[in-house]
């Protein structure tokens, strides 16, 4: 079942076209990797899905993105609800300068619904466990999240997203700013999260894409060149550009 579908999606930064007629479908409880050289529009595309590009002045978007059958650029779309359902993890770990506990509960405290202290405690524990960082931080939940290492910060950021129970998690090069060990831990954790979440992940790390993703989309200069199950893309790419990129001939 396709959970997100983009149809003929164009995006312009002012006059400059950054995305060109993107047609793609994402499937539930899968990890999709978006690969391609720097500046080809991967982040831009990812940010159209939760409408983060709305924040940039001068952006024009044509075409359609459907999420659970609903047009996210339609007039009846509630952006706040959309972003709650599509969590986002950024390239640079960006915890708030608050305690770890306050970071994880931030999304919950935005909602109308009020939670008891016990409920919050439980969600914090569950989320941090799911993000594989509970053991690192369980004794210092009231310490500033900025006191953690980069890898721990990124996992707290993932826990912060998990706490609001989104349907989809968008990840923009979540491990590229981290050392290989932290990077590996996060990769494993994401693989485990696949049971419950649909994930779309931009990555520059080809082995990572091939290890954990179900499908891979290759972008080049704002075009979607090839989209197929990951095995096919890596073992048997149909397009010469894809092959060149994967074998490291450019990019």
């Amino acid at each position, binding site marked *: 079942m396709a959970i997100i579908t983009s149809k003929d999606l164009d995006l312009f930064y002012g006059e400059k076209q950054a995305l060109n007629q993107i047609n793609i479908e994402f499937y539930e409880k899968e990890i999709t990797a978006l690969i391609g050289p720097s500046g080809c529009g991967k982040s831009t595309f990812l940010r159209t899905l939760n409408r983060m590009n709305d924040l940039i002045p001068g952006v024009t978007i044509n075409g359609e993105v459907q999420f659970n059958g609903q047009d996210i650029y339609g007039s009846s779309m509630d952006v706040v609800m959309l*972003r709650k359902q599509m*969590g986002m993890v*950024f390239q640079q770990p960006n915890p*708030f300068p*608050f305690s770890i506990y306050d970071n994880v509960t*931030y*999304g919950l405290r*935005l909602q109308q619904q009020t939670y008891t202290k016990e409920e919050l405690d439980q969600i914090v524990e569950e989320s941090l466990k799911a993000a594989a960082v509970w053991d690192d931080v369980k004794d210092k939940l009231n310490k500033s999240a900025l006191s953690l290492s980069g890898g721990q910060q990124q996992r707290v950021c993932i826990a912060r997203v998990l706490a609001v129970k989104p349907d989809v998690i968008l990840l923009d090069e979540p491990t590229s700013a981290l050392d290989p060990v932290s990077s590996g831990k996060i990769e494993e954790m994401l693989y485990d999260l696949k049971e419950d979440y649909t994930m779309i992940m931009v990555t520059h790390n080809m082995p990572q894409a091939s290890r954990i993703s179900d499908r891979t989309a290759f972008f080049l200069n704002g075009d979607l060149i090839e989209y197929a199950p990951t095995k096919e893309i890596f073992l048997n790419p149909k397009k010469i550009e894809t092959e060149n990129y994967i074998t490291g001939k450019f990019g």
Partner: protein
Amino acid sequence: MEHIRESLIKKSKKAKLEQIGKFVSFLCITLIVLVVVAIFYFVASKGLATFFDNGVHLKDFLFGKVWNPSSVDKQGKPLVGALPMIMGSLLVTFLSAIVATPFAIGAAIFMTEISPKLGTKILQPVIELLVGIPSVVYGFIGLSVVVPAVRNVFGGSGFGILSGTFVLFVMILPTVTSMTVDALKSVPRHYREASLALGATRWQTIYKVVLRAATPGIMTAVVFGMSRAFGEALAIQMVIGNAALMPHSLTSPAATLTSILTMGIGNTIMGTLENNVLWSLALILLTMSLLFNILIRWIGKKGEMK
């Protein structure tokens, strides 16, 4: 060969220049430090003379309620109670800061978060202009507009803490606002993005993330405004009434440390108690501004550690 020699000579020229530069800046710094130390020494030696030479008790000075340095009470002690002025200074300082803070935060949010274009085009120049207006102008406007208005509404003479508070509020507002703007601007963009991406509205983001992350900076701005208000002399002197009495209401004439100081310093003779005790007031001012400075640094450091 010649080429190489030339470049070598050039380099040594630059090195020489650098040494001269270092020497000059060291000289300047030494001069500044000397001036500061001299001021402290001068004010302290004069200000402390009240206690050591004239034998006034510190307690009588800080907590005495009657100020009339040229006369003595029944026990023959000079009437040098500075409490009315200390209270007056603290009251106008805190009241003006309390009133100015919400306005400054509101204006700063508007300028950074809601309408940055309008903010930088119109409000920024206006604020810079307001900062540059000499304080005598503020005092004059206070005298001709605020004082009569207070008189009409609350009765009395119109001079007093309320008028002083209002004038100081207008005077510190631009400074506090522009420092608050800097504090909000220095909140990294990625905090806002993280918040919005979690489904926060713009207001929730401002309220729960931007203001919270900027709190040390905002506190610094407020303390800075307070230190300006505390040290302001001219404008406040024109509207507060300059009666060295305990302020029993906001609209009765009162005095601040600065206003009594500026009024009295030319009318007393060096070396007398009347003169020395004014230096003691100056010493309080100096100590307070030092405290404000330490507070600002402390807040800054605490903010950084997070």
